[in-house]
């Protein structure tokens, strides 16, 4: 019974999660093995690829290198596992998928078992393959069976921890829309997810600069690195590992219990927790349609984090370039123009943000052009603080006139990019509301739009950089601003031409 239940729930939750988040779709095969096969193959390749780096290290340092590599893989396993679990489990709660089971004569223990089985069905088994094949290879290269055994134990307990964290996050996430604190925490987590690669790179660079070799013994005590270390050499690492394993068990148990409580309480819990406060209609200078987008954005941590990431990354890069290369670099105009173009791409997120509410737009007197323009305006509004940061930074380094020109160049290129992206997204919206999902604008279309924008803004930026060789950077900035203005005009004209209704 519980296995059938698990399968049914997994299929339904996965289907809905895919519609909602657009997670890469893979066919739901009939057996657990098949449904995990693709992930197993992918993770095995990653695991073996990374672990093969151990071969490049001198024989005497291979055990230490294995601890490092397998530890990193363990962290990945925890991260990906927890993230996958949380996003799919929250669908179970938010969509009340268990409600149909409640009136059936199904034992609570069966439902609990089914929920646990979901861990396996949702690729839990596949997660193990991020570490285990690597552990086998690293153990072979290091000539240590302890490395292999430690790796296997690490994989198992990282999975347990990931499942526990996934259960906890999944049970809390439906509240993320309502409670500002959970919303903020959730946004932070999503930002960590998106910036993990960037941060990893940053930490490695920092570690290189600070010469962190003396921290090697400390690393051997840090979970999950300590488990492989314990397998290889025992000692204090074994004690640390025991603590980590116990913590994993406790987190898993607490997570499962918390999730079960949330499932059992269901709608009643949500209704009881919803605080009734006073209400008032939106007033003020900011148009309601823009305010709607901003409100939806603030209540959707994942999209908010994506948008912040998209917008902040180029701005951060510009700041770093300013401090390293100097504001008066002859290529600064081109760099600003290019990154401005990239930030405008975030306009596409405002379409996913509509969610199921987009179907309401189809009943209203809304034209695609008007929608595209409003979305672009919201993007510009969001970009304004970043543009001001750029203005302030460049103004600080090389004077007000330069700052103003740079600001104009950045603002115009980002605004034009927002308009063009929004135009393309509005065109992509389906003709009938039933065809709408937050993933209507497919990943393929997004990639095409991104490549198109990269080519357009990158090409123009390259031309501007070439001009920078012959004229002063101030003149180059003015040229960039002019180019941005021209693109802005193109964007406005395109949107005006988009008169067809939704």
């Amino acid at each position, binding site marked *: 019974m519980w296995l059938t239940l698990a399968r049914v729930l997994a299929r339904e939750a996965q289907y809905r999660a895919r519609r909602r988040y657009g997670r890469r779709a893979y066919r739901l095969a009939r057996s657990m093995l098949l449904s995990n096969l693709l992930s197993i193959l992918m993770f095995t390749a990653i695991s073996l690829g990374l672990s093969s780096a151990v071969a490049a290290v001198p024989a005497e340092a291979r055990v230490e290198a294995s601890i490092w590599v397998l530890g990193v893989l363990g962290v990945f396993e925890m991260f990906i596992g927890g993230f996958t679990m949380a996003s799919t489990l929250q669908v179970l709660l938010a969509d009340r998928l268990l409600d149909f089971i409640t009136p059936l004569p199904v034992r609570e223990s069966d439902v609990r078992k089914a929920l646990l089985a979901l861990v396996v069905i949702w690729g839990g088994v596949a997660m193990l393959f991020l570490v285990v094949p690597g552990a086998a290879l690293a153990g072979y290269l290091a000539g240590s069976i302890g490395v292999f055994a430690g790796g296997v134990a690490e994989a198992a307990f990282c999975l347990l921890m990931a499942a526990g964290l996934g259960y906890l996050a999944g049970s809390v996430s439906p509240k993320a*829309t*309502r409670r500002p604190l959970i919303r903020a925490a959730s946004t932070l987590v999503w930002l960590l997810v998106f910036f993990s690669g960037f941060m990893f790179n940053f930490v490695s660079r920092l570690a290189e600069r600070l010469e962190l070799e003396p921290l090697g013994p400390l690393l051997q005590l840090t979970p999950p690195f300590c488990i492989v270390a314990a397998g290889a050499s025992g000692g204090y690492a074994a004690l640390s590992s025991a603590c980590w394993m116990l913590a994993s068990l406790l987190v898993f148990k607490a997570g499962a219990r918390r999730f079960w409580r949330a499932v059992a309480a269901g709608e009643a819990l*949500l*209704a009881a927790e*919803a*605080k*009734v*406060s*006073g*209400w*008032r*209609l*939106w*007033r003020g200078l900011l*148009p*309601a*349609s823009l*305010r*709607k987008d901003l*409100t*939806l954005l603030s*209540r*959707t941590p994942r999209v908010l984090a994506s948008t912040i990431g998209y917008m902040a990354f180029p701005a951060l890069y510009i700041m770093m370039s300013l401090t390293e290369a100097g504001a008066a670099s002859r290529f600064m105009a081109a760099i600003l123009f290019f990154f401005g173009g990239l930030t405008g791409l975030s306009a596409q997120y405002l379409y996913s943000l*509509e*969610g*199921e*509410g987009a*179907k*309401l737009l*189809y*009943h*209203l*007197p*809304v*034209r695609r052009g008007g929608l595209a323009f409003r979305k672009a305006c919201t993007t510009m509004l969001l970009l304004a603080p970043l543009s001001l940061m750029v203005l302030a930074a460049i103004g600080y380094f090389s004077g007000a006139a330069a700052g103003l020109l740079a600001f104009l160049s950045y603002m115009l290129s980002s605004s034009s990019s927002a308009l063009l992206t929004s135009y393309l997204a509005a065109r992509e919206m389906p003709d*009938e*509301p039933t065809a709408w999902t937050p993933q209507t604008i497919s990943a393929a279309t997004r990639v095409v739009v991104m490549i198109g924008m990269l080519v357009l803004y990158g090409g123009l930026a390259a031309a501007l950089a070439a001009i920078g060789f012959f004229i002063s950077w101030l003149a180059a900035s003015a040229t960039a601003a002019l180019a941005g203005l021209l693109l802005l005009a193109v964007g406005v004209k395109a949107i005006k031409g988009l008169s067809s*209704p*939704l």
Partner: protein
Amino acid sequence: MPATLSEALKKSSTVSIHVGLQVELNCCGQGLACSFSSEALFISAAISGLIGGCMLKYIDVTKRYGDVAAVNGVSLEVEGGRVTALLGPNGSGKSTLMKMAIGVVKPDSGIVEVDGVNPAEDPCEARRLIGYSPEDVVLYESLTPAEVFSFLGEVYEVPGSELERRVRRYVRLFKLGEEMGKLCGELSRGNRRKVSLVSALLHEPRILVLDEPFTGLDPKSARVLKELMRKMAYEGRVVLFSTHILELAEAVAERVVIMHRGKVAAEGEPSELREELKASDLEDVFMRATGLSEELEELVKSLWGE
């Protein structure tokens, strides 16, 4: 329905004419909607759009989904001034017909006219004229009803103070006060329906199209909705709603249209239809018009036979 103004006047017990504003004909306590002939031309300009002016018209409309004809050559006129109920079994084409009015579904052939506007060509203009509430309520789950209404106010260009007045009125009527600060995703089914209905009414449309509006409503709210529909019809607006609850249709609607397999199986006033089909009540009318009575009888027999 009276064919001429003089006939209408004969039938009416009271007539009040507010020059340039509105004409009210009162017959047995009920407002009449009239299509006047040439003799009423001198005042038709004044009353245009208020009585008998609004019209939702389907002319030989067909819509197919693959091999299935959801709507098959339907010609129908829904006039302002009285409540019209659209009845029919599941899949008979009611919702499709309603969606055509706002241009969400475009007919394969035939024409739909919303007060002279073809929604297939200019859906935005049609949607300005229509207040539509779909069968499956669609709302922004992460917004509160107050926020949704604010957004709709801007879309329909309702001035701020007027929007505030209307929202407060409907919130009071539908007892939505305690729900206004909650997120739409947290509302019960009935309250979501109410929010959807208020959304359709906010811009005081000339044509009201409600798909299964009573689903999930508590008796009090259902009563309020009935009165609202009657009042809007009394003001000369087109009120079209679909339902499976035949008692409701009989209680509210002055005219019923019964759809079956994408076609209009019967239409008229409930009393006329009863007489015409020699039926005892609207349920009987429905069964006879759709040809389901024999089938139903056999089903019931087999049920008890078991």
